Each structure stands twice: as C-alpha cells, then as structure tokens.
C-alpha cells in the first residue's frame, strides 16, 4: 500500500496528467495488493461512462462554451457593473456578482473563473487594484459555479450517492449566493482599508442598468429554463442539460448573432475534449473506488468512526476536516468517487439527510479548487492574472474566511441549504 501511495505522489509531482496518475496507481495497487485480474480496469472505466445521467456533463459544458463564445460573459459583466459598480472596491464587487451570474449558467468552477478573470483582470490592472487579491477573490467566487446550479460536481455527486439531482441543485442556491455575498463583504473590508484607488467608482444610472440588464436577459433565462424544466417535470436533468445547450445555440445564433455555423465544429470539438478529459477521470477514479470497496475499507472506516463517536455533529466535523485536507491536494471528481461511497452510508446511518450531506461535500470541494497546492480555480485565476500561484495564495486568507464561514453555517444549520428544497416540496 505504501508503494502505491509513494507512486501516486511521484507520478503527480512528475507532471503525469491526473487522469493517468489515478489509472496507473490503480493498476499498481491491483498488481501489488490483490489477485484481481487487470480486466477490472477496463470494466470500471467503461462502467463509469455508461451512464445516461452523466450525459448532463457534456451538455452543460457545451451550454457554457456556447454562451461564452456567443458573448454572454461580456454582457453579464456589463450588467454586474451597472448593478454594483458604484460601491467601494467596485471592480472586486463586479467580479463577484459577475461570477455569480455566470455560475447560474456554467456548471464548472474553473470555466467561470476563467471567463471572469479574462474580462476583469485587465481592468483590475489598469485601475491599479491589487491584482493578487483580485485573483484570489475571483478564484473563490468562480468556484461557486459548482455550488450554484447547474453544477457538474453536483451531477457526479448525485449519481454516486443516489440523490435527486434537481433537489441537490436547489439546495445549492442559498449557500452559493450566501458565499458570494460574504466574498463581497470581504472585498469591501479589503478595499475600505486602502487608498483612493478603490473609491474611483462608476455612478449608478437606471438607464445603464436597464440597457445592460436587457442585453443579459436571454442568458439569465437559462437558469430558469434548467431549474424550472426540472422542477416543473418537463425534463429529467440530462434532458434539461440538452435543452439548455440547444437554447444556448439559439441565443448565440439568433439573439446575440455572434455565432456562425462555421464556428460550430470547433466549439463542439472543444466541448467534446473538455468533457472527455473530465469524464475519463470518472472512469479511472472508479477503478480506485472499486479497489477500496474490494478491500472492505468502507466497512472498517465505518466501524472505526462509529467507535470514536456516534454524534452526527462530531462526524460532520471530521468529514469537513478530512474533505478540506483532501481537497487541498486532490482533483474533485476523483475525490468524490473515492470518498463519497465510503462516507455517505455512514452519514445516512447517523441520520444526516443525504441532500444536506451532499451540499456539505460540494462546498468542501469548491473550497478545495481554490486552495493550493492543487486547485484548478486557483491555477486559472493566477495564470490569467499573470501571477504565480504563490503570490495569489498570500492574498487568499480573507476570501477563505468567507468560504469557511459559509461551510460552518451550512454544516450546523441544515435549514440554510434545505430551506429552499423544502419550500418547493422536494423534501420533508
């Protein structure tokens, strides 16, 4: 087992793609610790992909790619700027609001971070804002695309722990927006303490708000189409994703008129290879997760945890610490596929609602994508800002406090995430 752990770290440090790190380490574990035939690798990879439900992933990725190419990110930033560009530290505030708006369309934290960074970083630099703090803030705000629906992470989590995707989506709304709100407070506190640079705000006008709001409306219809379609019983989540992608196409072609038929092959190819990269990780991580089940780890861990304490509060504390730690180093999808099958049954046994538990898991891994040493949102935000991960990390403290606060709130006040699903009658 030690050999496998060492190999895992060495492969990762060597720069082997995460998907192959998982695959190669699993093969090594298979050979050194079991007598199971290698065919299990192929079987699990196939099984990981043989899922109609997971097809929501490529469709939501496509919707995001299409909307971005169709000029939607720009329009959302303009609207956010009209909405909130008058507050102290306006560019930071605009970044947060824009990230929230895109989060309601995009299912991927890193895509959201990339889109907001690409537009906001040049402005931050130009107006002499602290670029490192900006990158840290955008990484955290962008990561909320995983908590605010639609969310690729939630889809994977729902499939793994067998909960309703629609209910989980709704449960993410309050925590996600709450986090954005606290990040805006952080930005305010940060900007307030500094000089005049941060007071150079744009005046608020109704006409600008209405004009930019009108331009962003076709995009803002999308979240309602997705959630309304799922809640209203028109579509399953997978179908909703396909409809959202089609809607994105129609908006790009006929409303914004920035898409051309000739763009389509490149955009589809981009979607396909992005989704393939994500989904192959699902495949290789499920080999790992099989190995763990095969070694009877879930049972042993359950016995151990329950011997420590049978209090749900203590269990959730342990889960948070464990997931935050794992989230620092590991890729989200892989971590979910490996850990959740172990932890979710224990949570249920302790009487924790599966939706509540899932929201906690998602929040932890959203934080994980913004923390070093491995965090895709952090990487993207730093890279687009042209700063090193180290430089940005130094400014991560304040935004992380906001994220941790939300994590603690949703862990111990289950009404915060569960209030909306209950209101919609999705759970008791």
């Amino acid at each position, binding site marked *: 087992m030690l050999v496998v752990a060492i190999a895992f770290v060495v492969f990762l440090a060597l720069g082997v793609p995460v998907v192959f790190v998982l695959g190669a380490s699993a093969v090594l574990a298979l050979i050194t610790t079991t007598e*199971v*035939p290698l*065919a*299990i690798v192929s*079987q*699990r990879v196939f*099984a990981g992909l043989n*899922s*109609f*439900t997971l097809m929501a992933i490529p469709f939501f990725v496509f919707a995001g790619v299409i909307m971005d190419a169709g000029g939607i990110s720009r329009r959302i930033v303009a609207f956010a700027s009209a909405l909130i560009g008058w507050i102290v530290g306006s560019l930071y505030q605009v970044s947060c609001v824009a990230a929230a708006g895109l989060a309601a369309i995009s299912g991927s934290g890193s895509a959201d971070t990339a889109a907001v960074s690409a537009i906001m970083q040049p402005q931050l630099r130009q107006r002499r804002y602290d670029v490192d703090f900006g990158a840290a803030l955008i990484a955290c705000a962008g990561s909320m695309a995983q908590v605010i629906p639609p969310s690729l992470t939630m889809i994977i989590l729902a*499939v793994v722990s*067998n909960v*309703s*995707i*629609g*209910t989980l989506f709704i449960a993410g709304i309050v925590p996600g927006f709450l986090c954005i709100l606290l990040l805006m407070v952080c930005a305010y506190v940060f900007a307030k303490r500094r000089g005049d640079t941060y007071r150079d705000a744009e005046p608020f006008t109704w006409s600008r708000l209405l004009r930019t709001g009108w331009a962003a409306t076709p995009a803002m219809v999308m979240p309602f189409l997705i959630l309304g379609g*799922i*809640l*209203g*019983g*028109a*579509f*399953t*989540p*997978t179908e909703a994703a396909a409809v959202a992608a089609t809607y994105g196409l129609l908006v790009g072609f006929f409303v914004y008129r920035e898409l051309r038929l000739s763009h389509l092959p490149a955009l589809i190819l981009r979607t396909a290879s992005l989704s393939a990269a994500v989904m192959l990780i699902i495949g290789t991580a499920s080999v790992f997760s*099989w190995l763990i*089940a*095969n070694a009877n780890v*879930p049972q042993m861990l359950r016995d151990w945890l329950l011997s420590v304490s049978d209090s749900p509060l203590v269990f959730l504390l342990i889960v948070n610490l464990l997931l935050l730690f794992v989230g620092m180093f590991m890729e989200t999808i892989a971590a979910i596929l490996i850990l959740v*099958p172990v932890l979710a*049954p224990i949570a249920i046994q302790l009487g924790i609602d599966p939706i509540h538990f899932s929201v906690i898991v998602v929040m932890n891994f959203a934080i994980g994508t913004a923390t070093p040493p491995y965090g895709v949102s952090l990487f993207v935000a730093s890279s687009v800002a042209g700063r090193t991960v180290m430089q940005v990390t130094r400014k991560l403290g304040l935004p992380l406090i906001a994220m941790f606060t939300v994590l603690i709130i949703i862990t111990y006040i289950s009404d915060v995430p569960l209030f909306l699903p209950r209101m919609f009658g*999705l759970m*008791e």
Partner: protein
Amino acid sequence: QDVTLRASHNANADEPYGVGLRKMDELLRERTGGKAAIQVFDNATLGDEMESIQGTQMGTVDIAVTANETLANFVPDLSVFSLPFLFADSEQMDRALQDPEVIAQAQDVLNAQGFHLITFFSAGTRHVMTKQPIEEMSDLDGLKIRTMQNPAHVDTFRAFGANPTPLAYTELYGALETGVVDGAEAANTNFYAQKFYEVAPDWAMIGWLELVAPVIMGEAAYQALPEDVRAALDEVGAEAGSFQRAAYRESDAAREADIEAAGVTITRPDIQPFRDAAEGVKQNYLQSEAQQKLFELISNVE
C-alpha cells in the same frame, strides 16, 4: 478458510438479496466445517448488475445475484423468466424454481454461455405505482409508466395500454416527483424502502410479474472449486434459495402493511384483462426451442 467466495448484489444488506446471501454463507460455513465462506458485498460496491455478471467471467466477482432482466442480455433464452404472468402466483413460482427439470433446463441454458446456476432468489411480485388510482386496466391508458430497459416489459406495458418509458432507476424518484413519468412498476419492497409513495401515492396491486433473480457463478470458476465445496455449495444454494423466497413472501406481506400504514391508496383491479393483454406478448418471446421447453416445464409445475 480455504475458499472465500466474493458475492455481489445491488441492494441494502438487510433487504432480501443480502439476507439470502448471508444465509447461504452461514450454511456453507456450517456444511464445510468452516472451510468455505461467502463474503457479501452489498449496495453494488463491487459493481452494478451488468458488471457483476461480467465479473463472474473475468474473475473479479465470484457470485452475482442479478435481476433476470439483466442476465438475459447475456443469456437470451432466460428471457422466458421475464414474461408477464409466467407464474400463477409466488407459491407456484417457489415450486417451479425448485423443480428439478426446470433447474436442469435453466442450468443447461446458462452453461452454454459459461455461467453456473446456484439457485434462484425472488425479487418480488411487481405492481404499479401511479399518481392517480388505477381501478381497472383502462385507467393506465396513455400513462407514462417507467419500466426496466427490457423489451418484454416494454411490450407488456404497451399491451396494457400504457406508454412504457424506460428510465434510469436513479432518476425515477425525481421523474415521478416532477411528472416526467406518471408511474412505475415495482415490488412492495422498492416502493416502500425508496419512499416512492411520497411522490406516487397510488399502488395498484396487479402482480404482473414475479421478478426472479438467478444466483450465478462463472462455470469455470465453479469447476475450479474443490469437489467437496462444490457439493456443499449445490446443497446450501438450493436451501438458501428456498429460504430467501420464503423470507421474501413473508416480508412482502409485512411491506404491504407498511405501505398501507404510510397512507397509500391501494387498489386491486380485475386481473383478467391484464392477463389477456399479456398473452399476445408471450408468444413473441418463445422463439427458440430452449425457450419453449423452459416455458412448458414451468407451466407444467402444479
């Protein structure tokens, strides 16, 4: 132990599959003086039904319990067991599934594809849940009813007048809740344990299918076992099968009481129209000689 057989199934530990496998384990340890045992992996932790079936061939799983519908994708002749109203009731099913001739024929069919039959478990009598009461067959007209992804099931519900809608089981609760489908077919156990009654509070007890679950190994893996273990497994397999089916019948009655207590509206429509509609479906699935023979043997059991 000399031999530990790893058994995979997709339900909770305390549901009938898990109970039956644990009984088999207990009997096997007893009968072999602790030489052989079965380690049960619940909740599809070693893979879903399709993967577990494959696993018996690849050596990743020793014993698999799966709905006959999944196994029939590997062994088409087994689709006989998925036919509507094949058995008179669960008692006749119990007798048929321990009838030596039926067992021998099923064993032949499975052997031909490299599988070995240990026994049959029961997966319950299937009824229909909906969001409005079904008093007679015509009430099903045009309703979107979720079925398994199985041609015989789809054809049957079409024959009942419904609009059969195969859907992933994991999406079912949400689909019922939001009205993507109007109902689904299921057994008392699933209906109660998965709390489907919260979103589909009407339960029409038509018993259109006795769902059977073959318990299988790979033939090669079975032949590789020590002879005394093989003999013990044959014996305890049959015993555990009888035990599991009896336990299921009992639990089924208990579940029905639970369902009633949960405030579900239970209806019992006249079965004859359903049986008549199902007759036409049967003929399409009795093509091969093996299928016809299996069907006859089962029908001949008193």
